[in-house]
């Protein structure tokens, strides 16, 4: 039996809505400031095992992105417990976190360093990333001269080649031109075949989900509506829409 990679135990996430930013600041000093609570995630529990491929479905505002953010640890649950085992790489916003004055190559080092890789480790995957991004001479030009497509390609190349143990993809497969999209799909397929990487996927495109995932979780208003085999999840989701 493989180990659990992600455990959500009765997780709730509520955003505090203040009347304005001043009220938010005052709330630091006084508990009397009133606010409304917006529960985006409401008591969710699930376990995802190592190597599993899970697709998340749900309408806008159902809580998909919030769940992924909490797994990436850029957002904290209001209550409940989250356990994450393994290095997470999230293809959430690919172009985020580049330093525009640095060249593509320097950005590869910087980003990998921040994620905890040493220079030697980066050196090993550097060429693979550069080949994958396919930027030609631009790799040694400042990122501010890149087009948005080039930035996205570089971001994708970095995130997918750092050998993550948990890979999160949030509809990022729609970057670049057709040739690059095919390359991305091939890469993900390859990772999925190896079978040791946990794969989380948020999408509205059922055919992609079917290809990469065997399990689907359907969310509605912060609650799990269905958790099971991918075909049934897709059927359920399509009925909802």
């Amino acid at each position, binding site marked *: 039996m493989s180990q659990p990679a992600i455990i959500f135990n009765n997780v709730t996430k509520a955003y505090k809505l203040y009347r304005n930013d001043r009220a938010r600041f005052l709330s630091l000093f006084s508990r009397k400031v009133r606010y409304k609570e917006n529960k985006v995630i409401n008591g969710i529990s699930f376990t995802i095992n190592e190597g599993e491929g899970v697709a998340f479905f749900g309408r806008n505002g159902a809580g998909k992105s919030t769940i992924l953010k909490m797994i990436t640890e850029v*957002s904290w649950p209001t209550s409940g417990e989250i356990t994450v085992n393994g290095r997470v790489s999230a293809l959430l916003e690919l172009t985020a*976190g580049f330093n525009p*004055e640095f060249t593509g190559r320097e950005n590869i080092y910087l980003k990998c360093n*921040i994620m905890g890789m040493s220079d030697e480790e980066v050196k090993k995957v550097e060429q693979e990333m550069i080949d994958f991004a396919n930027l030609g001479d631009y790799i040694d030009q400042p990122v501010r001269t890149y087009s948005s497509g080039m930035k996205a390609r570089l971001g994708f190349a970095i995130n997918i080649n750092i050998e993550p143990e948990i890979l999160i993809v949030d509809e990022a497969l729609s970057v670049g031109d057709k040739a690059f999209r095919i390359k991305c799909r091939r890469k993900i397929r390859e990772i999925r075949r190896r079978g040791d990487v946990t794969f989380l996927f948020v999408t509205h495109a059922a055919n992609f989900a079917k290809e990469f995932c065997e399990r689907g979780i359907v969310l509605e208003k912060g609650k799990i509506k269905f958790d099971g085999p991918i075909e049934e999840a897709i059927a359920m989701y399509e009925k909802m829409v």
Partner: protein
Amino acid sequence: MKTLIEIIKEHITYRKQIGKLALANLVKTYRGSALGWAWAFVRPVVTIFVFWFAFSFGLRAGGDVDGFPFFLWLIAGFIPWFYMSEMISGGAGCIRSNKFMVTKMKFPISIIPTFVSLSKFSVHLILMVVMIGIFIVFGYFPDVYYLQLPIYMLMMLMFFTVWGLFAGMLSAISKDFLNLVKSVRQAIFWLSGIIYNVQNIDIPWIRAILSYNPVTIVATGYRHCFIDKTWFFEDLGSIRNFFIVYIIMIIGAIWAYKRLYKDIPDVM
């Protein structure tokens, strides 16, 4: 206390990244312009020149101090001020300007002020070398009092790094706080005795308040080394005052951190 241990643990885990990020932060500031690194010096040079000119020629106040030309007395306190001034506003803005590290990737917020502070401190180190060079050109060679410089440099670095955490957290959640800090910076400059000797103030209670002002203590400390040749143990009172204020600052920073680190990614 638990929060403090957590922050220290994060620093140990991310110790390698801190150096890399400090360097990247430094390079980022000065790259992309033709003069590049020269800009690190242009601002200090212009500022010091303006003040020296105004005092020496305009106000005719720039007489020798303790046998040193006024100009040297001025830069001995001005050079640390550049770091402090950068940290007062830059420290407050540090989390905002590194937003992507908070909202887009897993990265401990408490590290951000540390690497921002270190990158500004490395500029300070270069300016210090330049300043010692200027003293030598004027014929004043380094002496045994320079040995205590690291103490004051470390005090300054420690204080303003913690300030960066405190003010950075509050500014991340409230733009008003950031604006407040930015507008108070000028006031701190004029009130802290960077360009005059606070000992010359006649009113005792003002002197008493300023003896707790870390900016004053650091600037005076630098002048102990360069100008009036006083050992730090001859002025233990200000060291004690410094640490009182420092501990209050640490408590404030931990309070702000504990209160806000979970909210900040959602608000930004």
